[in-house]
């Protein structure tokens, strides 16, 4: 049983007929994910490639195909509505890939989802993958992932792939990889993912990839110290970022003295979490941690 997704995951793709939606729906299907339906208003009644039925609304899609997970490839101005529609339709997990959603929209979506007990991963994230279960919800490139004992949670996209690529090459496969996204307000944070990895029998160690901005990493460090027995290895990007500048991700910004990489690294050092100074150190730190744990 992996975190947040497993062999029971049945996915409805919102925005399935768009350029990104259709490309990634195919990628998910080819990987082995159960993509059971798609939604594009106006295209209801048609069939997506590979026989996936398309509906006008998420509610209809869920009723007809018992989808329990939604993945959203919908443009930013319409994403808030898409997220709420999915929650209202009764899915239990929404993975929102979309970048550029106004923060005010996300602030309103979060209580809407919480009231319905729906988890959001993202927005502005690559999604989640469980290699051992052949479930992929999102845009993570399947070729780099291998099943194994390492859980990965990250705010970034390609940096995550870089790290996973090195882990896989070193024989350190992944139980699951969750991209929590680069925005300032997100549905699933480091603590949520760490808690799930701690409970997951297949995960033996966790890699946490953070970046500047906010206090999620600092709070995660406290959580690790109080609630985790499994080893965590961390890397923080943005050590050379100047103050006050948004570094690509909307959430990657140092405000005054708050949210620096230094502050985050110190928080991890304080609780004894091994810190990679550069990405290529992560694999050996994980190997050491697994070695210690398995003795």
């Amino acid at each position, binding site marked *: 049983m992996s975190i947040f997704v497993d062999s029971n995951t049945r996915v409805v793709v919102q925005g399935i007929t768009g350029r990104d939606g259709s*490309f*990634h729906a195919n*990628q998910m299907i080819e990987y082995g994910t159960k993509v059971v339906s798609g939604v594009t208003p106006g295209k209801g009644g048609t069939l997506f490639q590979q026989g996936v039925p398309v509906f006008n609304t998420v509610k209809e899609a869920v009723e007809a195909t018992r989808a329990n997970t939604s993945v959203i490839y919908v443009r*930013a*101005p319409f994403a808030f509505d898409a997220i709420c529609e999915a929650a209202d339709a009764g899915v239990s997990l929404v993975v929102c890939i979309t970048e*550029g*959603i*106004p*923060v*005010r929209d996300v*602030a*309103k979506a*979060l*209580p809407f989802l919480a009231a319905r007990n729906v988890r959001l991963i993202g927005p502005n994230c690559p999604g989640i993958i469980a290699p051992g279960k052949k479930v992929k919800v999102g*845009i*993570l*490139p399947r*070729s*780099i992932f291998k099943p194994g004992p390492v859980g990965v949670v*990250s*705010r*970034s*996209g*390609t*940096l*995550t*792939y*870089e790290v996973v*690529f090195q882990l896989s090459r070193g024989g350190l496969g992944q139980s699951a990889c969750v991209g929590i996204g*680069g925005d*300032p*307000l997100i549905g699933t944070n480091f603590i949520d993912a760490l808690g799930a990895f701690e409970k997951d029998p297949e995960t033996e160690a966790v890699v946490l*990839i953070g*970046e*500047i*901005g*906010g*206090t*999620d990493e600092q*709070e995660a460090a406290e959580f690790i110290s109080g609630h985790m027995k499994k080893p965590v290895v961390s*890397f923080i*990007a*943005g*050590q*050379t*970022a*100047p103050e006050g*500048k*948004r*570094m*690509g*991700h*909307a*959430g*990657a910004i140092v405000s005054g003295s708050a949210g620096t*990489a230094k502050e985050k690294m110190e928080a991890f050092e304080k609780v004894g979490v091994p810190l990679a*100074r*550069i*990405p*290529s150190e992560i694999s050996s730190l994980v190997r050491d941690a697994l070695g210690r744990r398995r003795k």
Partner: protein
Amino acid sequence: MKIHEYQAKELFRKGGIRVPRGEVVTTPDGAYDVAAEYARPVVVKAQVLVGGRGKAGGVKVAGNPEEAKRYAQAILGMDIKGLTVEKVLVTEAVDIADEIYVAVIMDRRSQKPLVMASAAGGVEIEEVARERPEAIHRLSVDPRYGLLPFQARSLAGFLHKDFVVQQQIAAIVDKLYRVFDSTDASLAEINPLVVTPTGEVIAIDAKINVDDNALYRQKEIEEMRDVSGEDPGEVEARKADLSFVKLKGNVGCVVNGAGLAMATMDLVKTYGGQPANFLDIGGSSNPQKVVSALKIVLRDRNVRSIFINIFGGITRCDDVARGLVTAFKEMDLKLPVVVRLTGTNEEQGREILSEIDVHTAATMDDGVKKAIEVAR
């Protein structure tokens, strides 16, 4: 996106928050005219998008038009933290009995808007937070309901002893929240909110930062953008839909993905080099994007080498390589370029790259080290 004090004051005014009379001028004579028209003491305030204008000498009280003109003369053209003052706001001076701090921010930790207020206004709020944190009152707002009147009243109760003044403060806090919400602000701040000796409550400074992601639905505010203080590379990058931040260094970076781009510039520093920039080229392998990216990086005359670091997941390395070849042929680059292409179709990608004169690297670490070496 940041906007000037005078623009934020205009938004406040529209939102029903009282601000002093004022006009923006670009010449000392203009300052004279405004002061003469008002026939009262005025404050001449530099309009630049940085804090600390007062400390830098960019805010002066003038008792008469001649003084206003002299101060405007001194302040216009002044350099404040790297920005040149091109405009000053000449605004009616207000008598101050009390100074209050009030702001609304989108708080990441609670994931809700947060109103912060303190009776210790007129000073740096970070200083108050450090030295007297108990003087700052915080109130979470449910974004679905907005700021409720009882919340505004409760906050105002901490900020002034006089009940009539409290009522005015509560009204302004309510309006400040509405401005924050309706403009998609990440910050809306009044420091100081002044109580005059006659009990009037006026905002004599204004600051609004707007969520960049919301600009598509805040057209009027987007039109307020002032690029004069921005690095031209950053302005061009925005137009080309690239993320770019200029740094001080000589190793230019072009990377796909913000996290990877940050890690790349960090790695340059770690290996003893100086990154010249942050640049996220996104997921596209479109040659025009590559050309735009290279042109933006090369605006910086200090750049001595360029490291192109691509991890191709969905993005295919052969597509990226074709884009690079097209870009190179179009540009006739004189600087050494190091390319690292890993991922989908990397073999084909490297083959395509052999058409042009670039160094190739198998890993990010090798690429950074090489780029630092050839920059010398």
